[in-house]
């Protein structure tokens, strides 16, 4: 069975500073991994996906993530945080069956002035 662990439930950064949201995964096969963002009272929006191509994946809004098999990690980064980045972020792994997904518990990103 697959699982994901988001290592921080809450991260606070200042506007203009780098963002790092950490995610470790467990999977018995080569996984597909995703990061989603959720703004208050909204659905989840796909930020980026890893599907066994390039290990450094670029997504929308300046986010990127690096797949590191040796560390079983898929951390999300952004060079410079913006106030609009404040939201909940979910790391997700696919189990390969009817595209069912396993969600992490989420990391709330706070961006301060």
């Amino acid at each position: 069975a697959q699982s994901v662990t988001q290592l921080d439930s809450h991260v606070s950064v200042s506007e203009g500073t780098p963002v790092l949201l950490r995610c470790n995964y467990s999977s018995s096969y080569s996984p597909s991994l995703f990061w989603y963002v959720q703004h208050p009272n909204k659905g989840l929006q796909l930020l980026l996906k890893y599907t066994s191509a390039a290990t450094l994946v670029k997504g929308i809004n300046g986010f990127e993530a690096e797949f590191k098999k040796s560390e079983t990690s898929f951390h999300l980064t952004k060079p410079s945080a913006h106030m609009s980045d404040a939201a909940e972020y979910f790391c997700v792994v696919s189990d390969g069956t009817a595209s069912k997904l396993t969600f992490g518990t989420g990391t709330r990103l706070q961006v301060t002035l």
Partner: protein
Amino acid sequence: SQTIHQWPATLVQPVGSPLSLECTVEGTSNPNLYWYRQAAGRGLQLLFYSVGIGQISSEVPQNLSASRPQDRQFILSSKKLLLSDSGFYLCAWSMYGGFNQPQHFGDGTRLSIL
């Protein structure tokens, strides 16, 4: 391009009343469809998924049910709501048969049970 619609956006219902939430997808055929519930401050719980018309898989025993009367329509129902049914309900779709396919979410329905 594909779009997903969910309604209503918010709903307040008394305990014991029925429920019907609807979700439709446009711009794709034979999608996989999903219903999730997100309790306050918690992650997403998969309730039902469907790989085709009339094919529903239930992930969690509960007083909710799902139906797929048409290819791109997914309905979440209950005959009698419980207080514990309160939450944020999300519908999602993905491409049929794809191992690496992400899911795409609607804007959700905020359900409050009084």
